[in-house]
């Protein structure tokens, strides 16, 4: 029997088309994220986000320092991003433009698109759902902005999606290799953000529960431990690192650069004494929920809620097509953040809620992998792919109407705040927008500078040579220089006016130092920033007064 050509080709063509979806998504991912990076680069937006410069400086100090080395990675922020920046950071342009971090974040965004596709495909059994999840990821303006910056978010989303994808595959096929890959991506996640620790804990429990139900206690214990043996290395090695560097495995919790210290400073800057979310679980949940909404937009939130309700309905009827535990483990970073906000370890501030500032709104992005997975579940509904198509079109339409990148706006809100609060100084957040960098650019003429690493914005904006800086990362030299500044430093930079109220260790150590008074001249004093220069050289009197605010 002769079969018409079209009849023979059609099924195959459909197959071929669906196999093109992932390559197509990856092409789109490369184009869109590279375009976003180019936009940020051209408009100098790569480093405007609060901590961007700090991340770049940490990486740069590893290779460019009086005492270079991996100890410069420090103990506050987890090191993966900074390590990944090292191949680029040595280049002055890549460092100063922020591209060294932006490139890492952009490549991570490609990985995010790939794993979003794979995770959604595994959960829904549909490549179209995978494609839709990838498009939803790429149409999130906040992620598109964050993936141009030297921040952790893009990398976190990539590795979290990767670990969830391999965990889902392990649940389906019980291949040890998938468990190892899940652990490896969990390890990367936990080496990037503390939220990752919550994720790997949840995933280890998920592995143990699933293995226990399948093979008894021994399997549960063994496989849970096997996952934790890899992923859990991140916290373990971090404790050891902290212990080796600063004598306490928990130094990251209490050092002057810790999250809690940063919160104190942020509150001090904002002039508030109590966080509205402190020990208030509903408020903490509300603030985090709103941050998620700001980051995801209404379409994603609605679709994710619908996906969650569908999953719940299937679970209640005991008809769930997939084991939901690996997907639900992606909620752990969000739960961790709500607890952190509740406990005051960190905070999220939103312009619409007290204290009407913007801080850490980007944390809402940490549940993006969970939401993508939940949205993919819609594909299992009758006409599921059509529904998903509508969601994607709505999201793209929303973006086309005017992208709202709350993460990007965060900086603008804070800049306005800084401009309006000239009297509240003694903090680092607002200083870069003042005359300090300009003064140093024009007047720095060589010599060692004693300065806290907390003023990284100032260092970066002033273009000071890092090899001439003496800061906390130089450890012994730093301690000696604080004891005897005139022997080690030609310049001293302090921020703040009242010792004890600031995290600037130079001010705290030297604000009333007779050595400074005797050996140094105050050459700049403006908006809480004070610069001293050693007296042993002639100094033009006109420069001493500095610049008025």
């Amino acid at each position, binding site marked *: 029997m002769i079969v018409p050509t079209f009849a023979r080709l059609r099924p195959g063509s459909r197959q071929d088309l669906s196999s093109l979806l992932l390559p197509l998504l990856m092409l789109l991912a490369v184009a869109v994220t590279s375009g976003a990076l180019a936009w940020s680069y051209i408009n100098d937006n790569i480093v405007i986000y609060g901590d961007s410069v700090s991340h770049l400086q940490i990486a740069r100090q590893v290779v460019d320092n009086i005492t270079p080395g*991996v100890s410069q990675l420090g103990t506050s922020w987890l090191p993966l991003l900074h390590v990944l920046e090292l191949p680029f950071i040595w280049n002055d342009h890549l460092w100063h433009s922020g591209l060294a971090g932006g490139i890492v974040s952009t490549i991570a965004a490609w990985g995010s698109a790939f794993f979003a596709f794979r995770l959604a495909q595994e959960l829904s059994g549909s490549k179209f759902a995978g494609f839709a999840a990838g498009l939803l990821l790429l149409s999130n303006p906040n992620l598109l902005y964050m993936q141009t910056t030297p921040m952790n978010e893009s990398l976190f989303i990539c590795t979290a999606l990767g670990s969830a994808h391999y965990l889902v595959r392990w649940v389906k096929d019980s291949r040890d290799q998938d468990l190892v890959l899940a652990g490896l991506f969990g390890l990367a996640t936990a080496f990037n953000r503390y939220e990752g620790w919550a994720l790997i804990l949840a995933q280890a429990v998920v592995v143990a529960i699933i293995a226990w139900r399948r093979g008894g206690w*021994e399997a549960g*214990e*063994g*496989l849970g431990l096997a996952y934790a*043996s890899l992923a859990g*290395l991140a916290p373990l*090695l971090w404790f050891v690192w902290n212990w*080796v560097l600063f004598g306490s495995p928990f130094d990251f919790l209490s050092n002057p650069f810790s999250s809690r210290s940063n919160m104190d400073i942020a509150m001090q800057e904002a002039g508030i004494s109590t966080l509205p979310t402190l020990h208030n679980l509903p408020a903490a949940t509300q603030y985090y929920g709103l941050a998620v909404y700001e980051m995801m937009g209404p379409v994603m939130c609605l679709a994710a809620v619908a996906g969650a309700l569908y999953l719940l309905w299937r679970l209640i009827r005991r008809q769930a097509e997939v084991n939901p535990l690996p997907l639900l483990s992606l909620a752990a970073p969000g739960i961790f953040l709500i607890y952190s906000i509740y406990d005051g370890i960190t905070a999220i501030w939103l312009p619409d809620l007290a204290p009407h500032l913007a801080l850490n709104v980007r944390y809402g992005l940490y549940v993006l992998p969970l939401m993508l997975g939940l949205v993919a579940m819609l594909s299992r509904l009758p006409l599921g792919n059509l529904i998903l198509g509508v969601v994607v079109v709505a999201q793209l339409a929303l973006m086309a109407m005017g992208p709202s990148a709350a993460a990007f706006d965060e900086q603008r809100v804070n800049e306005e705040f800084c401009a309006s609060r000239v009297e509240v100084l003694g903090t680092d957040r607002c200083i870069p927008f003042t005359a300090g960098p300009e003064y140093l650019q024009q007047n720095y003429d060589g010599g060692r500078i004693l300065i806290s690493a907390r003023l990284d914005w100032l260092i970066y904006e002033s273009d000071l040579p890092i090899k001439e800086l003496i800061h906390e990362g130089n450890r012994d030299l730093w301690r000696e220089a604080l004891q005897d500044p005139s022997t080690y430093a030609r310049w001293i930079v302090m921020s703040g006016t009242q010792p004890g109220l600031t995290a600037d260790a130079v001010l705290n150590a030297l604000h009333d130092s007779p050595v400074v008074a005797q050996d140094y001249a105050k050459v700049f004093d403006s908006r809480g920033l004070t610069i001293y220069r050693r007296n042993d050289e002639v100094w033009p009197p006109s420069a001493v007064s500095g610049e008025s605010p």
Partner: protein
Amino acid sequence: MKKPHSRCPSWFRRVPRNSVGQGSPPAAHIGLKGLPPQQSAQRVLTRWQRWFGFVLALGLPAFLILYTQATLICLLAASVSIYTLCSLYKLAVTLRAFWSSPEVPISGEDIAALDDDSLPLYTVLLPVYREANVIPQLIESVAALDYPRDKLDVKILLEADDRETARALAGLQLAPCFEVIEVPEGKPQGKPRACNFGLSRARGKFCALYDAEDRPDPDQLKKSLIAFAKGGRRVACVQAKLSYYNPSQNLLTRWFTTEYSAWFDLVLPGLHAWGAPIPLGGTSNHFRVDVLREVGSWDAFNVTEDADLGIRLYRRGWRTVIIDSVTYEEANSSLLSWIRQRSRWIKGYIQTWLVHMRNPLRLLREMGLHGFLSFQVMVGGTIFSYLANPIFWAMTGVWYISRPEALPALFPLPVFYIGTVAFVAGNLFFIYSHVLGCLRHRQYSLVKYAWTMPLYWLLMSVALWKAIFQLVRRPHYWEKTEHGLHELPQVGKVSVGGIRRADS
């Protein structure tokens, strides 16, 4: 239609006295017939090796006295480099095996397709020495092998002075396929010499070797034949996997089982996948008999004759493959006995390395660069790691306890960085490779013990020093491993798998 074959029980017979071999020429027992003596461990060191050792023994202290810091820096840099390269190679080998399961693929259909009538005669060598308490178990395990009885040529190799095992054997009824051979007294006494004696009387085209306490998978001989057929003419040896049936007896047996899971389930299959030389495990090796005779069989002077034979096969262009069939053994549960056994293994590894490094250029030519490097890592590197581990751990400990100023001066920055990464990542990788081994072997209850393996490695270092000492004093002495420390299922009045006490 496949011809059914029965097991042995009803036609057991007493040990026939006339079946005990007598008076074979001693030259046949020591192996390496027709091979130059420099390929045997009979002489521990050749002349140039002795000179090299002598110069090293004099030169190193002299350099240490004259140029203390520079010499120590060079030694540390060399150690760090070796350790790093070994770790990377073992990482590649382990991951290859974990990802691709490179054992020869053998399906149930492959086994079912074998025609019993066309199976070749298979010799099974069972060297035993003072194994009276496990001999019934051994006979039972061999009797349980799924292979036509008339195609089996089982040789129990009994040392002449082993009256105890002979008495135990006398109390058993053995099937006609069993032959008890008395290995005449001679030096060096040990398993390889007995095996060579057995090989000289082997009638099979293929032969397998099992230890006294072994319990091989019943289909292992058939799997081995399929592997030979699939592997092609260059495959001379098939190595089955070893594991232990008493892992939960105590901490030592848990460690031992964990170690074997990593070695036999990952490292050896990885070497097989990379086409690298495989230091054979001491039992469950299957050979083409003609090739085995051609390469000189086992070196009676080498106390890890298995590892040496694996390397020699590779040098002659033959290949070893791994099959997914397990032989269960008894893990040594006594610490002192374990140290004796392990010191023999390490001594044998040193012998093997010295023997094959007598002419490094020739070794390189015969093995190729990859084979040569793999041999250095798997044999030389293993010895080195036992030597270096406690030294580096001690240095790390001393640094964090007392921070002596002299220590940092010995580590220039590149050495420090590479050394630190290799030390941390290397140790973590080796621990994790044991986790992977447990996963592969489905030994889930042992995963947690993988994290305590560094303590086990310390014991290996103790065994290393015993091995070095013994290599000098008694290079060919065979430390007998005591078997039967694990409580076996009662074998006595009740028939167990075809074994019946004569008095029952």
